[in-house]
């Protein structure tokens, strides 16, 4: 049974477009995936992962969806399966990529388009505030 006050708190975030909030439920869902990412903070683990990604992933008990998302570097998929961006950062840093590189991919734009948007002042909040009221 849901507590109405807590449900209201969580539901308000669900109305925000293009945004996944890493709450305690998603933290449970993504635990193994996020712990795999943490392991890449050690050079010996980065080496082992690079040498054979699928083999390295076996020890982390990922769901099939989580494993496929990692192997395909499907960042949106990893987020959907409970990954958190600061944990996933260990994976894209291992690949030699920046936050901006991955942000551009998640928005579906090219690196150049995304960098240009940022140089021009970033994404305008207008129209990006509410799923239920797109005019906000």
């Amino acid at each position, binding site marked *: 049974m849901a507590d109405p006050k807590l449900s209201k*708190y969580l539901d*308000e*975030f669900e109305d*925000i*477009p*293009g*945004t*996944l*909030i*890493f*709450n*305690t439920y998603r*933290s449970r869902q*993504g*635990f193994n995936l*996020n*712990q795999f*990412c*943490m392991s*890449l*903070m*050690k*050079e010996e683990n*980065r080496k082992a992962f690079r040498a054979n990604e699928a083999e390295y992933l076996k020890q982390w008990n990922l769901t099939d969806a989580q494993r496929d998302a990692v192997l395909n570097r499907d960042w*949106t998929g990893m*987020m959907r399966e409970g990954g*958190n*961006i*600061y*944990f996933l*950062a*260990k*994976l*894209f*840093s*291992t690949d*030699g990529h*920046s*936050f*901006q590189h*991955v*942000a*551009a991919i*998640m*928005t*579906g734009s090219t690196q150049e388009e*995304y960098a240009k*948007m*940022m*140089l021009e*002042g*970033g*994404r*305008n*909040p207008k129209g*990006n*505030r*509410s799923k239920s009221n797109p005019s906000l």
Partner: protein
Amino acid sequence: MAKITAGVTTSHVPAIAAAIDLKKQEQPYWQPIFKGYEFSKKWMAEHKPDVVILIYNDHASAFDATIFPTFAIGCADEFLPADEGWGRRPVPKLKGHPDLACHIAQHMILNEFDMTVVNSMDVDHGLTVPMNLLFGDLGPDEEWPCRVIPFPINVVQYPPPTGKRCYDMGNALRKAIEAYPEDLKVVVFGTGGMSHQLQGTRAGLINKEWDTKFLNGLTADPKALTRIPHSEYVRETGSEGIEMVMWLAMRGALNEDVTETYRFYHVPCSNTALGHIILENK
């Protein structure tokens, strides 16, 4: 008695760490960003704090997914820069102030702020970038000019503490510092922010108007800012804009009446609206 003389807020964008480590400070993209901190470095060199209490968030570096402490304090002798996936940053290790940190932890807990005591931790870009921006680009063989007490607040797993709780926590931190018998000059940092969203199709969101209101309020009317709900931070400034609650923690440690010594705001810094302010207790 130990005394808080000033507060500093600044964004702690990881790309700044990369720019420093790869010596890109003079490149056209980075030059205006580093120029924005020239005054601050001079001010800090003259201000000479004995200790910096550095409020930041751990970005899944010291704490993995097994534990998300809401308010924590680093009580170790020293702290190494974390390996965030590309090796440890080439910056000096940070010398803590275990005696003051232990005093603060105990004082705050007895004052009903239940701190998590951390006796060993690495510190990530959230801490080392603000150190660089205010103290300069020091190499691993040099020494930071003051002691640092890391003070991580959880803003990674929701819910983070409310803005009001952070502000009240700052009040309790101040009381703890003022009860420390040794004469020490303390500067409190509140880092992270401002507008930024690093994930999803809305990544890159920047809300200059909202950020400006927040900067104005931070100096003049911080109590009004403590009423902002989490959903407003996320809706208006992006999912990672929530880091601004840590600025309220810093603000709660200062006098109500402060002088705004310096302000800098710049878009873009990677995905982020970079904001920085120096407040001095009157």
